[in-house]
């Protein structure tokens, strides 16, 4: 009898650290998401060129990470999160392609790209002269346009390596391809951007 009581007591005592671990994991996830959400938003916004859509994509990625991968080691969260986000962006492009085909069928095209204006969307920063502000915004506008014109895989490689500072291995996980492919896509992206921006970034 006393042995049974002992086993039960040990079993109950194990539940307490599990709850504490869950709380700690929740805090870690909150901290991770808070650190990555702004950059992820801009990442998605450059890809889909629409802030509302980008917000939805980032929120979906956060929910999927919490639901499916929160028990993974914390150092794996960044590539996993961007992989989820990339998949969301690709799905978004597929849906847009279907939607555009349907709209063309009914005689209406999509005006979303024409209406998008990153400069107008950007809020006013503080602490700089209007000339500096305008110059920076114009440069970002050019960069966004140039990055947006890259083939999808090159864009992903460039943004993950440059904006998110993921290493080649992390980028490969995020893109779901080999490290060799990452290097190839990134190199081509940089060459294309250098050619495209060279005439503007002066």
């Amino acid at each position, binding site marked *: 009898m006393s042995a049974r009581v002992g086993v039960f007591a040990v079993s109950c005592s194990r539940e307490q650290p599990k709850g504490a671990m869950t709380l700690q994991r929740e805090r870690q996830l909150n901290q991770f998401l808070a650190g990555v959400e702004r950059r992820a*938003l801009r990442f998605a916004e450059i890809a889909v060129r629409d802030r509302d859509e980008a*917000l939805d994509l980032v929120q979906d990625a*956060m929910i999927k990470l*919490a639901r499916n991968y929160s*028990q993974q080691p914390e150092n794996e969260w960044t590539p996993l999160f961007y992989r989820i986000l990339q998949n969301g962006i690709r799905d978004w492009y597929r849906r847009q392609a279907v939607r555009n085909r349907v709209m063309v069928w009914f005689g209406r095209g999509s005006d979303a790209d024409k209406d998008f204006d990153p400069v107008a969307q950007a809020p006013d920063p503080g602490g700089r002269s209007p000339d500096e502000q305008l110059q920076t915004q114009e*440069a970002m506008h050019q*960069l966004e346009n140039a990055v947006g014109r890259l083939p999808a895989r090159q864009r992903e490689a460039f943004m993950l390596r440059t904006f998110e500072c993921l290493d080649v291995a992390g980028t490969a996980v995020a893109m779901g391809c080999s490290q060799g492919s990452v290097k190839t896509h990134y*190199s081509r992206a940089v060459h294309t951007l250098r050619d495209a921006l060279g005439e503007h970034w002066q």
Partner: protein
Amino acid sequence: MNEPRNEEELARQAKALFDESVDRLDAATLSRLNQGRHEALAELERTKPVGQWARWMPATGVAAAAVVAVVMWQGTPTEGPLPAPDSATDFEILLSEDNLEMLEDLEFYSWIEPADLAENGNVG
């Protein structure tokens, strides 16, 4: 802004611009991001892994019920002969023809018993 001379310089300039655009996000957007993050954390709460006891509780309950059912079913015949045969025997004795005749001659037996005792001098 100088023209990027090599890959590193282009990447450095691009990252600086990107970082600045991140810093310029407005309050309304940050609020929506905050809401989205809390919804994600609520999802974590909904999918919280259950404890070891709770995880095995349904299987344990089913197993315990099965054991009880098997013990009750198997245990019944091993308790020995039922009292039913004894009752049947009693009925046979009571309902046998001789006993019915004895009941009919009850007055005779009540007379002969004291007489028998008087002759033999014992109750045996």
